[in-house]
C-alpha cells in the first residue's frame, strides 16, 4: 500500500514546472542530469524528482568536492597508513580491509551546506537548495576494527583523517578529525561499497561513513588515520565547518572564539514533489519528500496546506532507523483554485521538531527550516 503511494508520487507529472536550462552540454560520467553548481571540481545537486526511492542510486546521488578529484587509485597499490598514537604503526592493503568483518549501514549523507541557498542575508558558498542529500547502503569494516590493527593508545581522544585529494594552488589540504568516541562507534565504518559499488567520485576505494553526522566528516579516498591527543587544527576544522556557539544577528561576521565544531545533524524534512512553482489542474495532487534526523530516527512528518494553521500527518515509509531517512507522502485534494502554500515539518525520536527559523550562521550550514513551496491550482475550464 505504502509502496503504491510512493510510486504514485513519481508517476504524476505537474502540468508545468520551472524550466531548467541545459548547462552547455556538460555531462558528468555515470550521473543522470544533475543541477550543476561547479563543473570543476564537480559539485552536483540531485533534482527533486530523483527522491522517489529509499536507497538513492549512485547515478542520482549528489557530489560535493572541495579539491580536484585525485587520479583513480590502483586497488592493488592502495595503502592506508595508520600512524600517530598507536603501538604498531603500519600500512594496510585493500585486501586486509576486505578481510575484516564487513558491515552494512544504511545511512543518509547530507552536505553540511545543504539548503545554504535559503539563508537570508545570502552567505557565500555553493547555493544548494534541497538536493545535496542522499541515502545509501554503505558496506565495509568498522573503523574501530581498522584502528585496532595498529593498536591505538587509550590517551588518543581524536583521530585525524586524510584523503588522497591534494591542494590546488595554496589551498589547504582537506584534513578532518573526529572524537575517538564517534570513530569507535559500531556504526562508523570505512566503506568499501556504496550500494554494492564504489565509484571514484564517491571515494574509491575507501570512504568514511559517519552516520548521523554532516557530510564533511565523511572523508573520501581515505589514505591516513592518525589517533591524536587533540583535535586537528587545519582550515577545514577551524574556521571551516564551524557554527557560532552563541547565535549571531543575521548578517553579522563570525566571532572566531565562539565558533564550534559541528557534530551531528538536526531534524529536517524536505518537500521534493511537486516542484516549487508548479501549476496543476484541479484534482488530487501527490505531495511527498524525505525526512531525516542525524543520529535519531524520524517519528513523524506533518504537512500544512493553509500556511501552518492546521497540520496533518503524512504517511511514512516503513523503515524507522536511526541514521537513515524516511520517505513521506500525502495525497492532497486542494479545496479550491488559486495559489497554495505547502509546508512540511518533521519530529524525531528524541522529540526534536523542525523549526520555522533555523539559526542564521555566516557559512550557511545546517539549514533545517520547515520546508515551504507554493503551487498554483487552476479551475477546470
Amino acid at each position, binding site marked *: 500500500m505504502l509502496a503504491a503511494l510512493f510510486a504514485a508520487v513519481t508517476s504524476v507529472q505537474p502540468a508545468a514546472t520551472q*524550466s*531548467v*536550462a*541545459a*548547462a*552547455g*552540454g*556538460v*555531462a*558528468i*560520467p*555515470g*550521473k*543522470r*542530469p*544533475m*543541477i*550543476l*553548481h*561547479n*563543473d*570543476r*571540481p564537480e*559539485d*552536483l545537486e540531485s*533534482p527533486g524528482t530523483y527522491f522517489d526511492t529509499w536507497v538513492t542510486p549512485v*547515478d542520482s546521488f549528489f557530489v560535493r568536492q572541495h579539491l580536484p578529484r585525485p587520479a583513480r587509485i590502483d586497488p592493488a597499490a592502495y595503502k592506508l597508513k595508520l600512524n600517530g598514537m598507536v603501538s604498531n604503526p603500519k600500512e594496510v592493503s585493500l585486501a586486509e580491509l576486505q578481510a575484516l568483518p564487513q558491515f552494512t549501514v544504511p545511512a543518509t549523507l547530507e552536505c553540511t551546506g545543504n539548503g545554504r541557498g535559503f539563508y537570508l*542575508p*545570502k*552567505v*557565500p*558558498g*555553493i*547555493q544548494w537548495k534541497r538536493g545535496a542529500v542522499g541515502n545509501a547502503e554503505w558496506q565495509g569494516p568498522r573503523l574501530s576494527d581498522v584502528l585496532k590493527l595498529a593498536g591505538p593508545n587509550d590517551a588518543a581522544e581524536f583521530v585525524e583523517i586524510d584523503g588522497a585529494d591534494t591542494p*590546488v*594552488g*595554496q*589551498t*589547504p589540504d582537506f584534513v578532518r578529525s573526529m572524537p575517538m568516541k564517534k570513530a569507535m562507534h559500531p556504526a562508523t565504518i570505512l566503506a568499501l561499497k556504496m550500494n554494492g559499488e564504489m565509484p571514484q567520485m564517491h571515494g574509491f576505494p575507501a570512504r568514511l561513513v559517519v552516520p548521523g553526522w554532516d557530510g564533511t566528516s565523511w572523508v573520501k579516498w581515505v589514505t591516513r588515520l592518525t589517533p591524536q591527543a587533540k583535535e586537528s587544527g587545519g582550515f577545514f576544522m577551524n574556521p571551516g565547518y564551524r557554527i557560532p556557539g552563541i547565535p549571531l544577528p543575521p548578517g553579522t561576521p563570525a566571532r572566531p572564539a565562539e565558533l564550534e565544531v559541528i557534530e551531528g545533524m538536526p531534524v529536517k524534512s524536505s518537500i521534493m514533489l511537486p516542484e516549487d512553482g508548479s501549476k496543476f489542474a484541479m484534482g488530487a495532487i501527490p505531495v511527498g519528500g524525505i525526512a531525516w534526523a542525524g543520529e535519531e530516527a524520524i517519528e513523524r512528518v506533518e504537512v500544512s496546506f493553509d500556511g501552518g494553521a492546521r497540520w496533518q500527518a503524512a504517511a511514512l515509509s516503513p523503515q524507522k532507523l536511526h541514521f537513515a531517512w524516511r520517505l513521506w507522502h500525502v495525497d492532497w485534494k486542494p479545496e479550491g483554485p488559486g495559489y497554495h502554500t505547502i509546508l512540511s515539518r518533521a519530529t524525531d525520536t528524541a522529540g526534536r521538531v523542525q523549526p520555522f527559523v533555523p539559526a542564521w550562521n555566516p557559512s550557511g550550514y545546517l539549514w533545517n527550516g520547515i520546508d515551504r513551496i507554493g503551487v498554483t491550482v487552476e479551475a477546470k475550464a
Partner: protein
Amino acid sequence: MRMKLALFAVFALSAAIAADQETLDRGKKVEQTTCLPCHSLRLIESQRLPRATWDKEITKMAGWGWTAKPEDRAALLEFLAANYGDDKPAAPPEKSADGRK
C-alpha cells in the same frame, strides 16, 4: 544649494550603479584568467552576494594563492558586484546532460 545637492545625488547615484564599462570588461577578463586555474566560473556565477561579501571572498582566495595587481583586484570586485550582486535575480539552475553510458 538644493540644486547642488540634487546634482551631487545624481552624480553619486550614477557612480554607485555603474562602474565604467572599461573597468567591468577588465574585471571580467581578470575573472576569466585568474579564477579558472582552481575552479570553474560556474562556482562564482551561480552565487548572488552583497558587494562586501564578494570583497571578503577575494581576500579569502588571495590567502589561498590568488594574486593580481591592485587595479585588477578592484576591477574584479566591480565586475562581481555589478553582475552577481544580491540585488540581482537568482541564477537559473542549470542541469548537466545525461552522463550514463
